[in-house]
C-alpha cells in the first residue's frame, strides 16, 4: 500500500472510529485530554502568580531568573521524562509515592513542561503593560490584591496566549509521558504514545486516525481559547 492510500485509509478509519465510539480509542482520548488539561491548569496555577511576581518585583538576579525561565520554555520533553522518572523510580527520592507509570506521573511531567511556558509568557505580558498603569493604581490607592487583579486582567490577552501555548506543548508531547507513563493500555496510554506504538507496529491507518483525533482535540481546545482571546480583543477595540 502506498503512502497516499495509507493516508486515505487513515481518514476513513478515523471517521469510523469517531462515529463508532470505539471504547479503547475513547479511553485513550479522554486520558490525553485529562492529563494535558490538568497539566496546563496546574502549570497556570503556579506559572501565572510566579510570573506576575517576577515581573512586578525588583530583586537581585531578576534578569537571570527571567532568562532561566525563558530557556526552560524550550525544555525537551525527554529530559523532563528522564528527570521525573529518576525521581519517581523505586530507588528515587520520591519513589515511596509509587507514582511511576500512573496518569499522575504523566501530569507531573507535563506540568513541568507547561509551567515555564505560562510563567515566561506571563512575565512578558506584565512587563509589556503601560508603566503608567501601576502609577494610576498607586494614585487611586489600590490595595496590592486589587493591583494584581487589575494588572492580570489588563494582560489577559497574553495570559490566554500562554494557555494556548502550554496546552499545545502538553497535548503534542510524547517523550515525557512515554517514559513516566509507560504506555499501558487502558491506564496510561495517551494519543501520542498510542500513535508511536501503532506506527512501530505498522498499523499506519490507526496511527493516522489517532493523529486526526489529536489534531481535532487540539483544534477544539484552541478554538475555545482563541474565542476568549478574540472576545477580549473586541472589548479592547470596539
Amino acid at each position: 500500500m502506498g503512502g497516499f492510500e495509507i493516508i486515505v485509509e487513515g481518514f476513513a478509519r478515523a471517521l469510523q472510529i469517531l462515529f463508532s465510539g470505539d471504547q479503547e480509542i475513547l479511553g485513550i482520548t479522554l486520558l490525553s485530554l485529562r492529563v494535558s488539561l490538568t497539566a496546563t491548569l496546574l502549570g497556570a496555577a503556579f506559572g501565572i502568580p510566579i510570573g506576575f511576581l517576577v515581573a512586578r518585583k525588583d530583586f537581585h538576579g531578576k534578569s537571570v531568573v527571567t532568562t532561566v525561565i525563558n530557556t526552560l520554555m524550550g525544555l525537551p520533553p525527554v529530559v523532563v521524562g528522564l528527570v521525573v522518572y529518576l525521581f519517581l523510580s523505586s530507588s528515587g527520592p520520591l519513589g515511596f509515592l509509587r507514582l511511576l507509570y500512573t496518569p499522575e506521573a504523566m501530569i507531573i511531567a507535563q506540568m513541568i513542561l507547561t509551567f515555564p511556558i505560562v510563567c515566561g509568557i506571563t512575565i512578558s505580558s506584565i512587563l509589556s503593560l503601560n508603566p503608567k498603569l501601576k502609577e494610576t493604581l498607586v494614585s487611586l490607592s489600590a490595595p496590592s490584591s486589587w493591583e494584581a487583579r487589575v494588572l492580570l486582567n489588563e494582560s489577559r490577552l497574553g495570559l490566554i496566549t500562554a494557555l494556548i501555548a502550554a496546552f499545545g506543548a502538553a497535548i503534542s508531547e510524547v517523550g515525557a509521558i512515554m517514559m513516566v507513563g509507560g504506555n499501558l493500555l487502558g491506564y496510561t496510554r495517551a494519543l501520542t504514545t498510542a500513535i508511536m506504538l501503532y506506527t512501530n507496529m505498522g498499523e499506519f491507518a490507526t496511527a493516522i486516525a489517532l493523529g486526526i483525533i489529536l489534531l481535532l482535540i487540539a483544534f477544539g481546545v484552541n478554538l475555545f481559547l482563541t474565542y476568549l482571546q478574540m472576545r477580549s480583543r473586541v472589548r479592547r477595540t470596539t
Partner: protein
Amino acid sequence: MPFLECRAVDKSYDGKHALKGVTFGIEGGDLLSVVGPSGSGKTTLLRIIDGLEKADSGEVILKGKKISDEPFPHRKTIGMVFQNPVLFNTTVFNNVAYSLRFRGKKDETIRKKVDGMLKLLRLYDLRERSAPTLSGGEAQRVALARALVYDPDLLLLDEPTANLDPYNVSIIEEVLQRSNREHGTTVIVVTHNIFQAKRLARTVAFLLEGELVEIGNSAAFFESPRDPRTLSFIRGEMVY
C-alpha cells in the same frame, strides 16, 4: 494652620533642579492654579504632593500631618488626574467603580455614586462602552470621574484640559468649580494656560525653573503682580 503646606521642597533629576525650596500653604476649599512655562516643575510639585515621587528634601503637610514620608494612608483622601490618563481595559462604569471597590464600598453604594458621577460628567450614556474606544476628551472626563467619585479632600489635576476641545474643557471646568464650591474640595490645577487659571482659580502660583516666584489671590496676581517675571509671563513675553 494651612490645609496643605509645602515646606522648602527640593527635587533634582540628574543634578538638574526641578524644584528649588518651594514653600507655600493653601487653605481648605481653595482652588489653586499653578502656572508656569513647560519644564518649570509644575508636574513634579503635583507628583510630590500625591506621593508618587519623593522630595530630595523638604516636607509636605496635609491637615497637619506630614505626608511626604508615608503617603499611602493619606493618599486615600487625594484624587489625581493626569495629563494623559491611563484607563483600564474595561467599561466606563468599571473604570469609575474601581476607585470605590479599592475602598471596600458596597455594590449598591458603588452603583449610585458611579451613576451620579457619570451623569455629572455627561458620560452616563457611555457607561457600558469599552474605555479604550473613548475619545481623548471622554477619557479625560472618565479620569476626572474616577478621581472625584470617592469625594477626595484634595484634588490634583495635571494639565487636565491640554489638547481638549472647548466642549470637553467647559464640562471639566464646570465640574471642578462645582466640586470646589458645593463640596468644598480643595483643588490644585496645574496649567500653562493663564486664561484657564484666570477663569478657575481663587489663588494662583507661578513657578519658573523650579522656583516659586509668586503666589497670591487671583485678581491681584493678574492685575498687579509683584514680580516682573510674573508680569512678563502674564503678558506672554516669556519665550518658552
